[in-house]
């Protein structure tokens, strides 16, 4: 095995071990029963309500981000072509 593969594998395993120890060693504060919502089983209505009331500002900002990404990606990929 090449050194790079071995080293990468080793570091990934190390990181996984640390995370795993963290996860399985903590007592998570969870509900005892998973909630069952029969009126809105896929939570779409609930998510929509949250987006447009509490998180409307991040939503609008996200749209701006996507716009900027669009423009930037097209500009960079296009390169220095003479118009």
């Amino acid at each position, binding site marked *: 095995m090449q050194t790079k593969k071995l*080293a*990468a594998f080793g*570091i*990934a395993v*190390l*990181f996984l*071990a*640390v995370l795993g120890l*963290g996860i399985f060693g903590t007592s998570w504060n969870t509900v005892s029963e998973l909630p069952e919502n029969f009126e809105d089983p896929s939570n779409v209505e609930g998510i929509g309500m949250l987006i447009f009331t509490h998180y409307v500002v991040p939503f609008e900002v996200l749209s701006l981000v996507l716009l900027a990404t669009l423009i930037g990606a097209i500009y960079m990929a296009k390169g220095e072509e003479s118009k």
Partner: protein
Amino acid sequence: MALENLAFLIPVLPALAFVITFFFGKKMPSGGAIIPILSIAASFIISLLITLGLLANPEEVVSQSIPWFAMLNLGVLIDPLAAVMLTMVSFVSLLIHIYAVGYMAHDPAKPRYFAETSLFTAAMLALILSDNIIQLFVSWELVGLCSYLLIGFWFEKPSAAAAAKKAFLTTRVGDVMFLTGIIVLTTDLLKLAGGIPEGGYLLRFNEIFSYIPQLSALEANLFGLKVSHLTIITLLFFGGAVGKSGQFPLHVWLPDAMEGPTTVSALIHAATMVTAGVYLVARTFPMFLAAPDSLLVVAYVGGFTALFAATMGIVMNDIKRVLAFSTISQLGYMMLGLGVGAAIGMEAVGISLFHLVNHAFFKALLFLCAGSVIHAVGTHDMRELGGVAKVMPITAITMTAAALALAGIGIPGTSIGTSGFFSKDAIIESAYLFGEHSGNWLPYGFSIAAALLTSVYIFRLIFMTFTGKPRSNYGGHESPASMTVPLAILAVFALVFGGLTQTGFMQFLEETFSNNFVNLDLGRLAVLGGYELVQSASAEPTFILWLPILVALIGFGISFVLYYLKAVDLGVLASEKNPIYKLLYRRYYQHEIFTEFFSIGIVYGVVAFLAQLVDVLIDSIVESISIVTVAAGEALKRLQTGVVQTYAAVVVAGVSLLIILIKLITEVL
């Protein structure tokens, strides 16, 4: 104005003359000689008046002081010892300055000369009348500096510059010993006095002397021998005197010091500076008396030097070299005179100083006459002279008078004789007493042998220079009046001073340490030193009384036969093939041993080696620091691979390790 209040002017006036002549001498006629002459004349008059006052009333010693800083003071002490030396120094200096007006008339650097001799006179006078040992040491160093400046007066000549350097360095060895002695003394005094006393000056001579009984009780352990502190201190002081007064082994600078102008040789190396060492031992004589074995060392070194220098004087061909070795020899006599104080106590100061003053007169006269001859004839070498008496009668007569004084011609038991006769006789008789009393006959033997050789070399000089037919073509004329008048005055003193003042002088000096300033019981001190003083001098056998003059006449006879009648062919005796002659002429190879082998070979070699070692060492240390830094940089730069994945890997690995580390630390602690 009381005369005592003018005492401080004695060194100050020549010092002012130095400043004025140094800056304004060029603009003044005769190169600014008149100001130093006037100031030294004033000092002479003041010292003479003070001396006369002291003669009338030996109890009234001039003693003044002002505080300087810390526990030091600046002070003036004029007791009989200082008074006679002050008068002699200022008188001889005055005459030599007048002579120098004529001698240095054609020299372009006259202002510098007169300024430097004026400074020298000021320093010497300050040395004599200083009342504490630090002031003496400061003046001592200043006198050494002026000697360096004046020996190297014609500094464009490389031999003169080298001679000045040699003089300074050799006397420096002595000065270091002197300073060490002062340090030991100060440490002991501070210990005995328990700290610096309020308003008291520990290093004033009267204070030092009052501590002598306590000092003699202190002992040190040197290489397994028990040595009294006083012995150490006095021997270190004597070391300083050895350097300054040209005793063996630090005498090597005096013959080379003849590179300076002849008036410098007369002033510094005959009459004044070289006597500073004798003055030091005389001034601290109570300490020497209370220190076991010190006076014996002084006597032996003095006696040996007297003989040693005289053996070299008989083969020299340069007029001034003969006189230089003669000076060393006579200084040996003076030290011997002090050293026999082990047997005769306080009288030793008297006889030694008597010889010092007489020697100043006739040795200065000898040098000035030699200068007169050199000035007229233009050469130093006696082999080219001969018959100078026809050309320069005054010089011939005065020089002969001086030669008679040096050889010590006179009639014992009476008051008829030259000065040198009385003073040298006194020393030789005391050496006899010393030998008889303590069984050490060597000093007496040295002094008699040296007397014989003294007579030989000085009459050799006279016959070779002044009599016979001229051996080369030298043209010349008698010197001007400014030069012959001092010669005449000095000749008169050389002839009659001894006879006139013999008993009075020595009695006057014996009062030095028993007056109102320093109250010492010298008998008690001698007991401390373990010396048995002669209580009553028995009459010496007539043979011993007549031996010195007999020996002097034998010496005269030898040189008469060899150099006047030329009865024996000297070509074989005085050639390089004769091993004894070669040994003496090469001055016992001292230059080779001391300078070439010791100084240049050993000392300079060691120093150069160490310097190179330090160089290499420091260089390597500094370089290694830089090498380490650069190597670390070279090694660590490989972390920057430029590949993004490496960076990501390192970040993740670092975070994981950090978390583990924190967890471990919080668990462990």
